[in-house]
């Protein structure tokens, strides 16, 4: 154990955990990283490319090295930053990306091979022999690459989504964020304070600074208590605001249960969409390191992180108590770490400061004007080489803190692609003024990292933000604080011949940058892509600025001239599960059920997905072992007796008003204005580009009241298009539209006995052929007073009706029809039989109306009226459409027992089968129990003139090609006598 004194851990609550199977103990308040350090564990992982031993370098979400697979079984979670994993009792974690044990990774051979693996090497080789890429090289690369692994089991946890609204969102609950929250909270504004950490205070919890001459923790506790007492403030810890979207919308993930062994009844995480009138970006800053030779050994870490571990977690970075610790810095900040460590009783070798004029802050050895030029220690640091004025000496140390300065966390401020600007005094990029509207950077994120200035800046930002939305906020009494000295030299890396790491995870060194420069990969984006620098899980948080500085040195330009990188969402990794929000499995999309769904379910129907609808596909009866038996029976029942089918899913639009007829004339290609009251007409709608859009019926129930039906698939689209023409193009017409698809249950009653059946339920209404002929419609009552609509229309080609009742009566009507028709052999039929019936009749459906076809191709070109204008009429006459000679035909296989598969392509008999000789395709196919043969519909070049010709239906995809005869698309009753009787 290398536990120090103090800290914000609860020593009364010990927690047991395992890392790579070995048991350890930590305390409540620990992270996995702090607990491992406190147990003397430095080696936590392996790097991506060279599989070099790696230890933790940071104390926050930017950690690039200490990445573990957390938990086991289906909850296994790859690439979890040990720095962000809150310790819980029973936690189990494993290191990743190694073959064999962590301390003897077989893939470490890559490190020996590293001269061959310089930046971009894979673009230059592996090209010969050609076939070896997929078979040999790539699988080997893929296996070695990647970091953690998935369990390949479905995520068992629950997730949720939520919406929040506020006046002010404060991102980050450090000094600036807390000051902002207190200012805004006291002003009565609706405030959300979010922080990725599990406790409030941010960097204040990791420094030894006092506030009001007491430990910062006391002030944090008092602020927390006050904020919690304010009903207008919502504190969200464990919540990462990961993205800034348009108009003040922020994406955030709350890790509700990741600190528990299992979520239990809770959701694991919640995705919040926060709409904020204004936001304060108080996300703090991220420390950077200084590349030097062999700077990647476990035990080398950011000095600020080292300080954080000591102060907050009472964890020492060394393996054994008493091992010496050194600090390498280019500014005052590194000295703070030395002071804090000394205060904790650690053995500090001294501070190596690159500045020749540096002065010590306290009682420790200072190596002014010196640098670290080498390290030793295979699995953990044992010694460092300190060089001053050309003289080098080795010192034994167990850990080295590196302080290269702080980069403001500008990420969210650049999510709208505003570029951060360089600040020469801070030696860092700060948010630019052209960031997302309403997002105000404050504190360290704005370059004001001193405690006193961060507190004041947070308050200032809150007052400024609220004044923009007319909320008056007053200054608050801030605690007494100081700004630590922060002088810093522009010292970016230690030159040398050996490898000096810039990007730890991806193994990008200063040499790689030099090579990229030599190869003319100078633009920063080329540098990044050529070397993979900044593309690791930290997205360059710990490497980008150092790399820019090295490239700037090589090109002789300044850092801002060399380039900036902007950041894109997410700020840190967000689990894919929570972004999906739990809409998985059957909950992926809503299911729309027809009014007779439960009735059909009881009857044992099989259902099929039709868009969002679930429709009865067929109704198997006892003894039927194959779906075809049921479907054939249902089809024959309709042709010979009477069948009933729920057709509610077809779109319905009520069209009312004095100009309704004129409006319909314009949206339908054929004439609708002349339709008599009580009549129905089949109608075609075109898109404005002249192609066929939809078909359906238009019924004129009353003088100024029409009911339009659409296909199921286009119900919403046609209604939208009609509203477009109504509101945007012809608003002067007196017409009103409403979609009534869900309001009316509609049941088709089809077959020679359909009139007989319906006559038993209609109230005093003459449905004789004379009284209610084909294509009649009426509003009437049925079943003793239930209002209903009756249409004499037919999709099957038989005498048929559709009867509509208010949706809530749909099931009752279905049951009544079954009851009344029992002696007639009434048979419920599903979508399969519906499909067979319409193919037998040659009616078009989705496969024929696929958006690529025209009225002409359906043989309905004459329906596009020349006497009036309508949507698409002008464009339908363009040459390419008018000259298209493909026509819908029927196809009958020569051997009727062989199915012509839909999707087969048609060829003139004996011609070569290739794209150029393609004559058409099969759109729909089925077995016709009526004809006792397979039949099909298809589009064929000049099909209308080829009736009787034998053609080839080619289906090379399934190795099936057969001959078919071209016939009329109307297989059943081509004269249409049946539906008129």
């Amino acid at each position, binding site marked *: 154990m290398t536990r120090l004194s103090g800290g914000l851990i609860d020593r009364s609550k010990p927690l047991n955990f395992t890392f790579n199977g070995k048991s350890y103990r930590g305390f409540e308040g620990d992270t996995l990283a702090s607990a491992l350090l406190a147990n003397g564990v430095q080696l936590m992982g392996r790097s991506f490319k060279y599989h070099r031993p790696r230890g933790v370098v940071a104390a926050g979400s930017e950690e690039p090295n200490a990445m573990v697979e957390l938990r086991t079984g289906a909850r296994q979670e790859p690439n979890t930053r040990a720095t962000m994993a809150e310790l819980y009792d029973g936690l189990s974690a494993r290191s990743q990306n190694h073959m064999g044990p962590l301390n003897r990774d077989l893939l470490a051979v890559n490190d020996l091979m590293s001269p061959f693996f310089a930046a971009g090497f894979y673009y230059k080789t592996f090209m010969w022999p050609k076939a070896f890429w997929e078979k040999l090289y790539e699988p080997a690369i893929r296996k070695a690459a990647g970091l953690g692994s998935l369990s390949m089991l479905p995520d068992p946890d629950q997730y949720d989504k939520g919406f929040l609204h506020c006046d002010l969102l404060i991102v980050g609950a450090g000094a600036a964020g807390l000051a902002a929250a207190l200012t805004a909270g006291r002003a009565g504004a609706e405030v959300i304070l979010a922080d990725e950490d599990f406790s409030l205070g941010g960097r204040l919890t990791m420094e030894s600074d006092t506030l009001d001459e007491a430990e910062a923790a006391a002030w944090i506790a008092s602020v927390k208590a006050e904020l919690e007492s304010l009903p207008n403030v919502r504190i969200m810890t464990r919540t990462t605001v990961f993205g800034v*979207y*348009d*108009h*003040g*919308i922020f994406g955030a993930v709350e890790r509700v249960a990741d600190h528990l062994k299992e979520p239990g009844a809770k959701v694991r995480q919640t995705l919040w969409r926060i*709409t904020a009138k204004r936001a304060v970006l108080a996300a703090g800053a991220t420390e950077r390191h200084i590349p030097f030779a062999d700077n990647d050994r476990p035990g080398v870490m950011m000095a600020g992180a080292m300080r954080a571990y000591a102060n907050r977690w009472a964890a020492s970075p060394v393996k054994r108590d008493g091992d010496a610790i050194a600090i390498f810095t280019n500014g005052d900040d590194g000295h703070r770490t030395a002071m804090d460590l000394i205060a904790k009783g650690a053995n500090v070798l001294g501070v190596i400061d690159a500045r020749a004029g540096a002065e010590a802050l306290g009682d420790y050895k200072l190596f002014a004007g010196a640098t670290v030029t080498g390290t030793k220690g295979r699995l953990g640091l044992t010694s460092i080489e300190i060089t001053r004025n050309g003289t080098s000496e080795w010192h034994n140390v167990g850990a080295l803190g590196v302080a290269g300065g702080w980069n403001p966390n500008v990420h969210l401020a650049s999510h*709208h692609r505003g570029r951060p600007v360089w600040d020469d005094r801070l030696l860092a990029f700060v948010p630019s003024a052209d960031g997302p*509207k309403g997002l105000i950077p404050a504190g360290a994120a704005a370059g004001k990292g001193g405690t006193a200035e961060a507190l004041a800046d947070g308050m200032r930002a809150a007052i400024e933000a609220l004044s923009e939305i007319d909320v008056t906020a007053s200054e608050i009494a801030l605690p007494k604080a100081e700004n630590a000295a922060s002088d810093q030299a522009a010292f970016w890396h230690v030159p040398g011949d050996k490898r000096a790491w810039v990007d730890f995870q991806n193994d990008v060194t200063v040499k790689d940058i030099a090579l990229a420069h030599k190869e003319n990969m100078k633009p920063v984006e080329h540098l990044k892509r050529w070397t993979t620098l900044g593309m690791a899980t930290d997205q360059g948080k710990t490497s980008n600025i150092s790399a820019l500085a090295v490239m700037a040195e090589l090109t002789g330009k300044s850092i801002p001239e060399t380039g900036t990188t902007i950041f894109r969402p997410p700020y840190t990794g967000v689990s894919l599960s929570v972004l999906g929000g739990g809409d998985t499995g059957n909950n992926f999309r809503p299911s729309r059920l027809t009014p007779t769904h439960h009735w059909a379910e009881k009857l044992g129907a099989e259902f099929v997905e039709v868009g969002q609808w679930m429709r009865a596909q067929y109704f198997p009866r006892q003894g039927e072992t194959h779906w075809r038996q049921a479907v054939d029976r249902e089809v024959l029942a309709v042709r010979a007796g009477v069948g009933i089918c729920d057709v509610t899913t077809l779109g319905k639009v009520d069209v009312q008003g004095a100009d309704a007829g004129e409006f319909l004339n314009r949206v339908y290609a054929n004439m609708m204005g002349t339709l008599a009251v009580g009549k129905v007409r089949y109608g075609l709608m075109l898109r*404005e*580009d002249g192609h066929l859009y939809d078909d359906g019926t238009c019924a004129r129930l009353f003088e100024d009241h029409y009911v339009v039906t659409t296909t199921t698939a286009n119900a*919403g689209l046609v209604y*939208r298009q009609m*509203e*477009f023409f109504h*509101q*945007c*193009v012809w*608003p*002067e017409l007196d017409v009103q539209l409403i979609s009534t698809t869900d309001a009316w249950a509609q049941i088709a009653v089809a077959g020679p006995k359909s009139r007989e059946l319906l006559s038993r339920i209609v109230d005093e209404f003459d449905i004789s052929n004379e009284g209610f002929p084909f294509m009649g419609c009426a509003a009437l009552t049925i079943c003793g007073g239930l209002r209903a609509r009756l249409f004499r229309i037919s999709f099957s080609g038989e005498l048929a009706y559709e009867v509509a009742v208010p949706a809530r009566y749909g099931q009752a009507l279905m049951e009544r029809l079954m009851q009344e028709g029992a002696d007639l052999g009434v048979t419920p039929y599903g979508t399969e039989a519906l499909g067979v019936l319409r193919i037998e009749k040659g009616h078009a459906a989705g496969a024929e109306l696929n958006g690529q076809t025209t009225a002409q191709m359906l043989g309905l070109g004459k329906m596009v009226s020349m006497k009036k*204008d309508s949507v698409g*009429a*002008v*464009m339908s*006459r*363009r040459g390419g459409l008018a000259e298209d000679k493909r026509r819908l035909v029927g196809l009958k296989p020569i051997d009727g027992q062989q199915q012509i598969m839909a999707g087969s392509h048609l060829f003139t008999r004996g011609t070569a089968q290739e794209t150029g000789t393609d004559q058409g395709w099969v759109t729909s196919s089925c077995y016709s129990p009526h004809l006792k043969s397979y039949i099909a519909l298809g589009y064929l070049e000049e099909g209308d003139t080829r009736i009787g010709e034998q053609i080839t239906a080619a289906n090379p995809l399934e190795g099936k090609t057969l001959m078919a005869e071209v016939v009329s698309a109307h297989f059943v009753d081509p004269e249409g006598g049946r539906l008129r009787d």
Partner: protein
Amino acid sequence: MLIPHPLLGLRDSQEFTYLGDANLMHRPDPAAENAEAAFCEYVFLRDNPAGVHRELWFHEQGDRSWLVVTRDTTTHEILGAELASDVKLGAAQ
């Protein structure tokens, strides 16, 4: 995105369906001599500006009104929203 519906206030853009350039409200005269050419231009060609764009959105999951929204395509900033029928009727007067 949030769309300032002229009747309903700020509404989430997820309630809306997007169509495109508000010029689609100006359907050419089908009886004109060059109707086909005018329709081709109307249906197929777009200014597609990088900047201020007047465009049609349908409040499909709301009050089913079509809106003309003025929005900057480079920043997504919304400069205004009107009922399409008002715009069309106003233009006709």
